[in-house]
């Protein structure tokens, strides 16, 4: 019994990591209907950037975020401005193709630079430390930090969207980009800002992933799939639904792993398909029509 409780708790915390991956995907889809196939690969790029910084300056991976987050934001801004803006339109094929191409270029590029070896980032004792909660249950300190980071990021996003001028502009553009232009909103620039924010969040996700587990240049697509599953399970366009979606996926995976290590990921995929079957709009669909 306690064993199961422990498993579920771990799954909930893993859900925090998945929510970090999912937030960026959900943001770019919400604002500009762009599904970025290279989303996962960009998070792995962030992990490698952190690796280089950690090795070069001997700093903690947490500290490397100070550089990796703005770097990824700049990459996102440039990517949207020079590559992705021109692909947006009624046809879904161009953005899919371009980001799929980008994904393959990134994977093979990282392979050329860093080889196919698995890498990891270490944060020392924090990595293995755990906090006893009493009753024989303990939570890992690092997973708890991850979940806390996810909640902070989501709270920041929620504030940004609901209480700032930029957030209003993002929502307005999501509703009706043509009328938004009449308000003086330069939609192409706004898309670049949205991608920059998405990539900043993805940078956090990538670094936390790299601390939690090892990664290699081909780790990206799996991250894209988990992020996608969390978004769909949570319900499109719902910020806190994304966290719930990540947690459902995380719990499904940890229960799967507890039953049989080889089937953990599969149970996550099955949970996604089951939600798709019984609640095609996700668990927390956005009620306000937009």
């Amino acid at each position, binding site marked *: 019994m306690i064993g199961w409780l422990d498993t579920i708790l771990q799954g909930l915390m893993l859900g925090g990591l998945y929510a970090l991956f999912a937030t960026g995907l959900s943001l770019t889809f919400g604002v500009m209907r762009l599904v970025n196939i290279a989303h996962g690969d960009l998070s792995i790029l962030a992990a490698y950037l952190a690796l280089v910084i950690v090795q070069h300056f001997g700093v903690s991976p947490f500290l490397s975020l100070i550089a990796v987050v703005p770097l990824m934001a700049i990459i996102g801004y440039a990517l949207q401005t020079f590559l992705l803006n021109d692909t947006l339109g009624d046809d879904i094929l*161009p953005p899919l193709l*371009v980001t*799929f191409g*980008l994904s*393959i270029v990134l994977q093979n590029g990282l392979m050329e630079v860093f080889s196919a070896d698995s890498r990891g980032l270490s944060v020392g004792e924090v990595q293995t430390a755990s906090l006893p909660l009493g009753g024989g249950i303990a939570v890992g300190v690092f997973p708890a930090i991850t979940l806390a980071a996810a909640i902070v990021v989501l709270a920041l996003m929620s504030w940004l969207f609901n209480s700032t001028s930029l957030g209003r502009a993002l929502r307005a553009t999501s509703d009706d980009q043509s009328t938004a232009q009449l308000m003086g909103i330069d939609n192409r620039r706004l898309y670049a800002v949205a991608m920059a924010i998405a990539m900043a969040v993805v940078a956090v996700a990538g670094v936390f992933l790299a601390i939690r587990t090892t990664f290699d240049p081909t780790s990206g697509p799996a991250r894209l799939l988990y992020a996608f599953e969390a978004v769909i399970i949570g319900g499109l366009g719902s910020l806190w639904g994304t966290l719930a979606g990540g947690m459902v996926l995380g719990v499904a995976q940890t229960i799967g792993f507890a039953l049989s290590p080889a089937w953990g990921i599969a149970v996550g995929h099955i949970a996604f*398909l089951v939600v798709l079957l019984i609640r095609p709009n996700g668990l927390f669909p956005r009620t306000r029509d937009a």
Partner: protein
Amino acid sequence: MQEFVVSRSTRLSRWAGLVALAVVSCLIAMPWWGTRAEIGTTTSFLGIVAMAQMWNLLAGFGGLVSIGQQAYIGLGSYVAVMVALQGGLSIYLSLPLAGIVSAGAAWAISFLLFRLRGAYFAIGAWVVAELLRIVFANTASLGGGSGVSITSALTGIGRWQREAYALWIAIALGVGAVGLVYALLRSANGLAFGAVRDSEAAAESLGVSARRVKLTLYLIASAGCGMVGALMAISNLRVAPDSAFSVDWTAIMFFAVVIGGIGTIEGPILGAIVYLVLRQSLAQYGGWYLIVLGVSAVIVMRKAPRGLWGVLADRFDLRLFPIDHRVRPRERS
């Protein structure tokens, strides 16, 4: 008064038909004149043509972009394994079976995937392929994660025959895929496909069921990929889950179709040639051919969205497989 004629075939298309017939005949005779390497390359070229054509049917004519067609390549490969190793039947029987099993699986999966639209359908299909990969990787009787060799199922068949059979199957699949797409698009249904791709709402209002059209295309494309999967098993003699269900298959289809020219029959053939040439000429540089391929696809999409064939066709007014009706002033005779 000016008179007009409506025609589909062009003089060029009739010549192209004759040339194609000659080329196919040469290919059928290839085991008697080609080297082993040439036969192998031709086999994989035709396999790529077949699957690219299937992906083209799905995305270019049905508007359904999927990143999960590797699910059916893998499924078809494993059907071949099961037929040969466990069913004890001739492995060549697995070809039609792979098609049937894939179409059946696609039908079942469509109930889930067709709830997703646009780009989400594309990624959802990928999830399904991943799930299948894990299932087969954990099935010990099929070799588990490291895969299984099917050489034992082919004992008694000489190497020359084996490679010749694989080539002929590839010819049947490649030519069959081109012919099928051509026939489908020239049929009355072809107009329905175009209508659904261009505007689902408008097609529905004319009594075309968009869902049925899409499902039909999805089943055909999946059956086609299943058969190509069986061909890959037969020609590689080995099936492993990670490569059979690899997203690289869809990447190949995607790039061959887009570089060649989406929504045309000639495009994917041209794209398959470009793909193979790139792969062969950059073979010694590891993953660089994929980088070049990815970059070229992005450039093509941005500079020439109708692909290389679109550029050629516009410049020289080429139509090898005419599927549209052309109205021309009647020539005075």
